[in-house]
């Protein structure tokens, strides 16, 4: 019996084993999409509880659990981003978890890169984060995002090309070339 079936039947140890195995990459992905620790944690928790619901659409015969979970995190993150976008437009601060101290601690380069990545179009950003930060193969990225493989590949290329252009001014050795 697999972990999901055991968890659905009420075995807490199976649920925790599943959680421990997958939650860190899912949290990183959610954090990079939302830029909020609180939102990312909520999303990860919700994503695992989704598996326990009777109406859960996960089919182990068709999709690996990792792909399914990344897909749920992506959808939840997009929902939150849109909600926060509306909240931003209404004048509230959607990223309340950023304290002044944490902002100071963030290095200048990290901040530049984060802004550059967040400035990418939505789908390019998601493909880049999954490919670069989670080392996910393009075929799996295509399944997570419900794209064709070629579409995922072209989005990754465009994302990287865009970042090279944006970050060129901060590249090491730039002054040397001048």
């Amino acid at each position, binding site marked *: 019996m697999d972990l999901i079936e055991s968890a659905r039947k009420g075995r807490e140890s199976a649920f925790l084993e599943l959680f421990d195995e997958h939650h860190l990459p899912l949290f990183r992905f959610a954090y990079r999409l939302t830029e909020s620790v609180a939102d990312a944690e909520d999303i990860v*928790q919700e994503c695992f509880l989704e598996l326990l619901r009777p109406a859960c659409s996960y089919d182990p015969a068709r999709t690996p659990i990792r792909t399914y979970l990344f897909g749920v995190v992506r959808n939840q993150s997009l929902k939150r981003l849109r909600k926060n976008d509306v909240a931003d437009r209404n004048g509230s601060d959607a990223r309340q978890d950023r304290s002044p101290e944490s902002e100071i601690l963030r290095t200048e380069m990290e901040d530049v890169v984060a802004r550059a990545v967040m400035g990418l179009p939505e789908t390019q950003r998601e493909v880049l984060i999954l490919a670069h930060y989670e080392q996910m193969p393009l075929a799996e990225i295509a399944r997570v995002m419900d794209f064709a493989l070629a579409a995922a590949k072209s989005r990754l290329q465009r994302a990287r090309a865009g970042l090279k252009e944006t970050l060129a001014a901060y*590249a090491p050795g730039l002054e040397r070339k001048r």
Partner: protein
Amino acid sequence: MNDTELDEMLDSWTARPATASLRERAQAGFTAAMEPRPLPATRVNWKNAFARRALKGLLAVAVVALGAFVLVVTQAVPQTLRLVSPPVQVPYVVDSEFIQYASDGSSEVAMHTASYSQVRTEFLLSRTLLAIRSGRRSREVWTPDSSTSSHARVSRPTWRKGLEPPEPTPTTSLYTLAAID
């Protein structure tokens, strides 16, 4: 900028660690999700549901019993229907005089009738046979019982082909009795 330089720059963006409480929160969520949910109130309140069904059944049985009772009473004692039926409203009465002609040209009144018409049907109230000449045969005479209030319904007489009976009018009509032979 080459791919290696871009990768190095991207690596500088590190994700914040999750808080230590994340696992505990997930665990609490699991426990909450596994708790048996209370049944809806409608299922628990089975007594009310049973009482409602019993009441409906009782009502249906009462209606059927009442219908059967009325049917039996009206069949066994038909007079009871008159208690609830409205009295017959006679719109008008037609007094008819039937004249019989002999071969020598003489005539005599053979019969008087009183009737009325309703919904293209003639209802005979009374009929009086006065005279029948010898050698001729008339229809069988029916005399309504004047002591009862019931009305006799008579069928239309057999008219000769091509002659349609006139519609009864509110005024007195004079019909000629045709020889039946």
